[in-house]
């Protein structure tokens, strides 16, 4: 059938066209498949007053907070993992540098449930966590709509309800997608699928663009259908310094460099100047990486070869 030709654009185009100042963004990833190329582009374009969400935020969110593009954060957690607390996050909250962001606190159960509710058209969902903790005593920009406590109409028991979330834009990075946006993923999922499908628009960043026919060879791997997607960007190595299963490993030494750099405002700024503002796009970023650290370092990140088995959907 005569589908339109393509939604493939550059990351610069995707971010310029679909991410507006003041937008509410879901950004997928869980160290696994972080859409870092998009994050750098958002910073490069100087977007403003964004609201961000994801369960278990990491260096990507820390960097956006440090770069000043974030106003609000619907949060469960933010750290640099093995490298400790998020330096920019701390400076924002503790010292208002570059400014103090507003934080609404949830958990790794309640937040993905809220995204699931958004994805599935449920106005709210009951959750069994948060009860009795100080997470119920702190409310920020969501105010009294952060949660509600009711007595279950079924058995009268105390029940906490949390509201559905509907991000303006979701940005995810996956292994492969076709030109219209059917996006396929494998390995650790985090809250990527519910976050993407909760959003009004989805930007798909991928390691490789494949044919619609290839998608159709294994349709159970698709997590977002094309009609939800507004832009497809092919960004090999797009999750670096995070990883993508089947493609490349986490770059721990780069993570260490980010930690060291972000210890100070000046170091952080220098890091941005080198890795974000100093390059125009992901191609220049990788070029710079190879020049700076050597091709063998780059090559060592490549995944080893260990494929499974193909399956058939025939009858």
């Amino acid at each position, binding site marked *: 059938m005569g589908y339109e030709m393509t939604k493939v654009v550059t990351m610069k185009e995707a971010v310029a066209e679909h991410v507006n100042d003041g937008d509410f963004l879901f950004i997928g990833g*869980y*160290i*696994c498949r972080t859409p870092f190329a998009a994050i750098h582009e958002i910073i490069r374009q100087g977007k403003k007053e964004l609201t961000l969400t994801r*369960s*278990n935020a990491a260096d990507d969110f820390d960097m956006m907070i440090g770069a000043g593009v974030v106003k609000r954060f619907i*949060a*469960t*957690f*933010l*750290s640099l*993992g*093995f490298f400790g*607390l*998020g330096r920019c*996050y*701390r400076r924002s*909250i*503790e010292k208002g540098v570059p400014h103090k962001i507003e934080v609404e*606190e*949830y*958990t*790794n*159960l*309640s937040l*993905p*449930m809220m995204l*699931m509710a958004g994805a599935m058209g449920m106005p709210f969902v009951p*959750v*069994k*966590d*948060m*009860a*009795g*903790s*100080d*997470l119920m005593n*702190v409310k920020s920009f969501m105010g009294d709509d952060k949660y509600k406590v009711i007595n279950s109409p079924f058995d009268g*028991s*105390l*029940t*906490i309800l949390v509201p559905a979330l509907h991000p303006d834009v979701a940005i995810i990075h996956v292994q492969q997608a076709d030109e219209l946006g059917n996006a396929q993923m*494998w*390995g*650790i*999922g*985090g*809250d*990527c*699928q*519910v976050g993407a499908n909760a959003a009004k628009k989805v930007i798909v960043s991928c390691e490789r663009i494949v044919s619609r026919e290839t998608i159709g060879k294994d349709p159970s791997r698709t997590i977002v259908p094309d009609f939800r997607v507004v832009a497809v960007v092919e960004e090999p190595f797009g999750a670096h310094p995070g*990883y993508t*299963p089947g493609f490349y*490993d*986490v770059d*721990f030494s780069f993570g260490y460099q980010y930690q060291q750099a972000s210890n100070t405002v000046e170091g952080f700024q220098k890091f941005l100047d080198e890795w974000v503002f100093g390059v125009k796009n992901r191609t220049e970023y990788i070029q710079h990486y190879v020049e700076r650290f050597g091709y063998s370092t780059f090559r060592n990140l490549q995944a080893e070869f*260990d494929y499974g088995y193909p399956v058939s959907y025939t009858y």
Partner: protein
Amino acid sequence: MKNHPDDYTKPELMACCGAREIRDYDVVLVGTGFPTMCANIASHTHAPNARLMQESGVFDAQPKRPALSVGDPCLNPGAAMIGTLLDIMGMFLQAGWVDVGFLSGSQVDKYGNINTTVIGDYNNPKSRLPGSGGANPMGSLAKKVLIIALHDTRRLAERVDFITTPGYIDGPGARERWGLPPDTGPQVIITNKAVMRFDKATGEAYLATYHPDTSIEEVRENTPWDLKVADDVHETEPPTEEELRVLREVLDPTRKLSAYERRGYV
């Protein structure tokens, strides 16, 4: 008769204490470091059918290197199931299938409440910490919660600055009033000096065993509340030869646990 070598480190002892809390067939939700070590010692010794999962979506991973995070690449190849956060936190934890969860925090109080959010005032914190992540739901919903902590009067507290994760909250009946599932809650606090358990009647942690190189007095001095002592209080059983063998030969040949010594677990 079990043999107990005495060349063990404090983190090794603590890992063995954690392992002993796990029963065969337990479903264990782990983070990285200590919890994984504890669960793996158990599954290599008395609990061969224990199953581990990570909140990121992984069940029964077969990592070839120690995972540095719950989303570590090495958790992917060979796992029995890889799904989503909601599969683990919703379908397994919230639905009541997780037997054991491990937690740690910057502050732990006598009710087993844990703070991983802020030190100081929430709105003007001295130190902003990562937040709940999976800790609050784990502490709310896992059948047995095992808490790992440094034993000093700064990390242990009469009352945490912020309850990120509920233990017994403010005492007996509080979890029930908040609708948390029955038969859940902290089971033990394992520190570098002692193993503390919880008195069902008061919800408070009490001293169950003290580690071989310390004493009841030393433990009480380093605990910022009036720590009750079990009638049958005794010295913690040191690592057995078998536990140490598994730990050093199979699980931690490069002695990564020793990093905890540098962090004060001595």
